């Protein structure tokens, strides 16, 4: 106990930042792919697929991320599937993100006017071609702010992975604080580091919005 905050403590926190970034990237990438799949199912022509994916989204959105983490890490451990903490956290976050991103993106796809589908159909484009060439580029512009907003939340939610023993920024701060007992300083620094991660994301969202606005700079 005791001692003062040194550069080594700070480097340890930075290492935690590194793992937070890795975990977030994993969550974004896996969750994005799975979320795209959920969006496709939610907008599918088959009512059964829409129904099943709707239940999935409701189930996941109605469950705390912490419970998901416990189920994946401890629950699977009991039945003999032992995942390393990084993988357990990554899988939990993927499931969590897929439900939210899938639903956000469904809304964006459906907000593109139906007449765009009709015009594409009339030109003999397939459903997939219409989606890729006509609908998604327009939906992406609408989707950017809520998507990045959600990703900022996810980045902060990775702190929950500390409960399965994964040493990301929050866990690292706890470790440092346990030896120094200067919670205000240590967690204050951790907070600033989180902000330093999230703020560029928000800025990036705004610049992306401007870039995607090509062709409709004067709205209405």
């Amino acid at each position, binding site marked *: 106990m005791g001692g003062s905050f040194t550069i080594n403590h700070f480097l340890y926190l930075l290492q935690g930042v590194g793992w937070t970034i890795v975990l977030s990237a994993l969550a974004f990438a896996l969750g994005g792919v799975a979320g795209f799949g959920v969006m496709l199912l939610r907008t599918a022509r088959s009512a059964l697929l829409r129904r099943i994916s709707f239940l999935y989204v409701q189930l996941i959105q109605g469950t705390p991320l912490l419970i998901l983490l416990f189920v994946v890490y401890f629950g699977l451990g009991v039945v003999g599937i032992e995942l390393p903490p990084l993988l357990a956290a990554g899988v939990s976050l993927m499931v969590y993100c897929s439900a939210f991103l899938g639903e956000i993106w469904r809304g964006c796809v459906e907000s593109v006017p139906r007449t765009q589908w009709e015009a594409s159909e009339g030109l003999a*484009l397939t459903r997939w071609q219409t989606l890729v060439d006509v609908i998604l580029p*327009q939906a992406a512009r609408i989707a950017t702010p809520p998507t990045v907003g959600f990703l900022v939340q996810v980045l902060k939610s990775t702190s929950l992975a500390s409960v399965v023993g994964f040493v990301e920024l929050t866990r690292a701060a706890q470790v440092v604080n346990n030896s120094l007992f200067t919670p205000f300083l240590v967690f204050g620094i951790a907070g600033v580091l989180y902000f330093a991660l999230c703020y560029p994301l928000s800025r990036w969202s705004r610049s992306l919005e401007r870039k995607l606005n090509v062709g409709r700079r004067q709205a209405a």
Partner: protein
Amino acid sequence: MSAVVKLHDIHKSFGTVEVLKGVSFEIDRGEVVAIIGRSGSGKSTALRCINRLETIQSGTLEVCGHRLDQPTLDLRALRQDVGMVFQSYNLFPHLTVEQNITLAPRRVKRLPNSQARALAQASLERVGLAEKIDCYPEQLSGGQQQRVAIARSLAMQPKVMLFDEVTSALDPQLTGEVLRVMETLAQGGMTMAVVTHEMTFARRVADRVIFMHQGRVWETGPGEMLENPQTPELQAFLSNGL
């Protein structure tokens, strides 16, 4: 003369509301047919059935040899033969005029990218807008957007073109420029079905006029029938100044 569009006893309901109550008509190759009638008379629905934007409940419907009432219908083949232009243009706002025109030919007909620009150029020349090839839709007036929409449809080389109230969103001057393009197409021998409120256009350009009323073909005849309506309903419709 061979009919390229044949509707026989078409019935169509939205929920419990029957909007087409046994509609029959034919359109010959190279013929221009104007479909007129009040809002809610079923004229737009009938047009949308022709390229399967709406499905019919009963009746027989054949377009360019495609049987729309059969489960074996090749939908994409049908749509390559039938072009459609909408009231609200429905251009793709995120694509340039060139990309709007060449998207379907590149994706559907595998047109090489190297030939795309020439195709866009040629299609635009037919609607008199060659200089707008690199614009985005929002940079064009309503009339210009509608002419681009016509060029986009033409680029797929359809055998039949459907026009769904294509000038209803335009002021009189812009309406004129769109109608002139359509008249040129008609003179070039294009088979056209035109749902319209432009009576002058119907009289001058159409080979035949179909008056729809309450989900039925009420009266049909050459353009001159508008001077001399046979039914009181058409008389009333025309005297309302529409």
